[in-house]
């Protein structure tokens, strides 16, 4: 290791640099390639048109990736929990709606491609004002202030109609702005690619920040804010700058929101959206840079996809959140990372059987739970909509006890079985980890 850090040959250094640069760039290029190709996987070749539902979902994912990453600049990087981060997202959105409307009047010279930047600067301006207040405190007090800021923005959005347009929000037309590239952005696909470009720029920017003095001191203050003081740093200044920059990126996401939907209502500053960022970051994993990206993609897919199939998707997201925070507080990426030492030692194969043994009881629990929720939801909402309850071609009578007893049994037996299997799994896991020795802690 120490030899590797002090290479003597300059050609070797140059080579290694090139290699490292390529290695660092490859995941970004891979994500870019996937994002660009994704719509074409769902292209409707029979009718020769794009799948607008999927494009709309992918666009939403792009915005949410930016928003969740911006949120994690506070939560994961600086240890600051924000309950009102949609304030900056939504404000960026409102500003772009107004910029576009001004462009329609002919007095706003910014092209559509740079509108997200203008939105970011709006978010930054607001974050400077609110950040000056919120970052006076940290931990719980900080979280409470951001909650207040969130409430304040919702109230303001409904009260100050000139700027926020009240309940109906501010409508706009993205084609009012001119395009640098000569694109008219009439199609969803064009807007999607604009989102991909900005999501990549924003993600690169936020990733770069993690390796700067401010980014590292944000980590340091998260771990031990007192010690940072005795190294010359004012933790409040660190929090403030991190907060302001996070507001910038949240604003970029909001700008894309305004461009995509051409209407911004108080939903864009509302607390559920702030809560969404928290769900995404936590389910994906706040401890890694990729966690919030994964969380944003997953939650958006659930919101769009599962909501088509079920009225109860909010419940599923909520339960998933509780399960993750309880059993896997490091999130999905944390779970994946925990396997890295085993993978390095080539012992990942030893987990295949224990994992397989978890699937049957796991499936039973999921089926039982989903069954109960769906039956309940059918009785309260579905029946009122005049739908028929239908499972695997069967239409059980929900007013009799058998379907309830069967699902309840499925859930409880599955739960007991899962517990036993989980204990077994833990034993195997602990033995494997112990075999790796202290090196496994890396």
């Amino acid at each position, binding site marked *: *290791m120490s030899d590797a850090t002090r290479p003597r040959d300059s050609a070797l250094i140059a080579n290694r640099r090139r290699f490292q640069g390529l290695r660092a760039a490859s995941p970004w290029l891979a994500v870019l390639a996937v994002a660009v190709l994704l719509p074409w996987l769902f292209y409707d070749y029979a009718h020769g048109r794009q799948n607008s539902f999927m494009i709309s979902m992918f666009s939403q994912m792009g915005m949410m990736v930016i928003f969740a990453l911006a949120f994690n600049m506070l939560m994961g990087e600086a240890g600051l929990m924000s309950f009102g981060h949609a304030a900056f997202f939504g404000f960026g959105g409102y500003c772009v709606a107004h910029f576009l409307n001004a462009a329609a009047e002919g007095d706003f010279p910014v092209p559509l491609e740079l509108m997200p930047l203008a939105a970011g600067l709006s978010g930054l301006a607001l974050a400077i004002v609110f950040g000056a207040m919120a970052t006076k405190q940290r931990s719980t007090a900080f979280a409470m202030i951001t909650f207040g800021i969130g409430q304040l923005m919702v109230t303001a959005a409904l009260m100050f109609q000139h700027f926020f347009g009240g309940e109906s929000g501010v409508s706009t037309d993205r084609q009012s702005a001119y395009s640098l590239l000569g694109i008219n952005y009439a199609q969803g696909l064009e807007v999607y690619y604009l989102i991909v470009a900005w999501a990549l720029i924003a993600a690169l920017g936020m990733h770069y920040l993690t390796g700067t003095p*401010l980014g590292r001191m944000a*980590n340091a203050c998260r771990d031990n804010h007192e010690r940072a003081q005795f*190294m010359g740093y004012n933790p409040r200044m660190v929090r403030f700058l991190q907060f302001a920059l996070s507001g910038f990126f949240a604003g970029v996401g909001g700008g894309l929101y305004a461009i995509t939907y051409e209407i911004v209502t108080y939903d864009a500053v509302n607390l559920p959206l702030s809560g969404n960022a928290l769900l995404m970051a936590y389910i994906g994993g706040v401890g890694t840079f990729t966690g919030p990206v994964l969380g944003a993609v997953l939650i958006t897919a659930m919101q769009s996809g599962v909501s088509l199939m079920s009225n109860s998707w909010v419940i599923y997201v909520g339960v998933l959140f509780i399960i993750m925070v309880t059993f896997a507080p490091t999130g999905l990426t944390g779970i994946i990372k925990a396997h890295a030492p085993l993978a390095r030692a080539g012992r990942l194969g030893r987990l295949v059987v224990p994992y397989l043994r978890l699937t049957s009881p796991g499936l039973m629990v999921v089926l039982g739970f989903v069954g109960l929720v769906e039956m309940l939801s059918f009785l309260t909402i579905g029946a009122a909509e005049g739908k028929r309850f239908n499972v695997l071609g069967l239409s059980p009578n929900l007013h009799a006890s058998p379907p309830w007893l069967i699902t309840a049994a499925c859930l409880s037996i599955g739960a007991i079985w899962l517990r036993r299997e989980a204990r077994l799994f833990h034993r195997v896991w602990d033995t494997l980890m112990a075999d790796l020795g202290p090196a496994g802690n890396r």
Partner: protein
Amino acid sequence: MTVPSIHLRDLRKNFGATEIIRGVTLDVAGGERHALIGPNGAGKTTLFDLISGRLPLTAGEIFLDGTRIDGLPPHRINRLGLSRSFQITSIFHRLSVFENIRCSLLWNRGFRYSFWHSLGRERSLNDEAGRVLEELNLSPRRNLQAGLLSYAEQRALEIGMTIAGGANVILLDEPTSGMSNTETEFAVALIRRVTQGKTLLMVEHDMQVVFNLADTISVLVYGQVIASGPPATIRANRAVQEAYLGALAA
């Protein structure tokens, strides 16, 4: 006469009605290794907290190289060239060992709150952090999470973080507490090396360490300095023997 590195004038600190520091006046000359000893509860750590700005004073004045520093926040005092360690290890436990040291170099190297420098490309900074790790014998642990270090290694890191920033006045709060004999020996040698040419004020319970390292010893008992002088004088001082050393000798 040259200006002392640290000059305390009639320092007082109350917690509620309780007086913890009861009028401490003390000079630490530039380049001196000064040990602060005294029984538990004498107020040694409190005195450190006052000097480093962690706690506000009730009364008195503190000067660092002739500049008045009482009332300044800790980060300001640190920027003026005073650095301290903690009795209870205070590190960035989720950052790597290397990152802990690099963070402590940042301000002194002028990076301030920069969000445009990429630290990975700062060659000389990274080399310097590597040298400090080498000095601490922590190079093999470079990429380990600091929270996973052994106790003695964490104590060494603590000292490293205190001196890395290049401060001229170093306050060490019980740097060898809880260490085995070998670990203590290593720590003493380390402290001697890294504080070369700097002013050191150190709280220490291990008398061997104190008499080994210190040029001057001050004895703090119930919030007052009862004696101050070279080790030989302190050893012979009757009041000190009664208050503190006597208990050990008996």
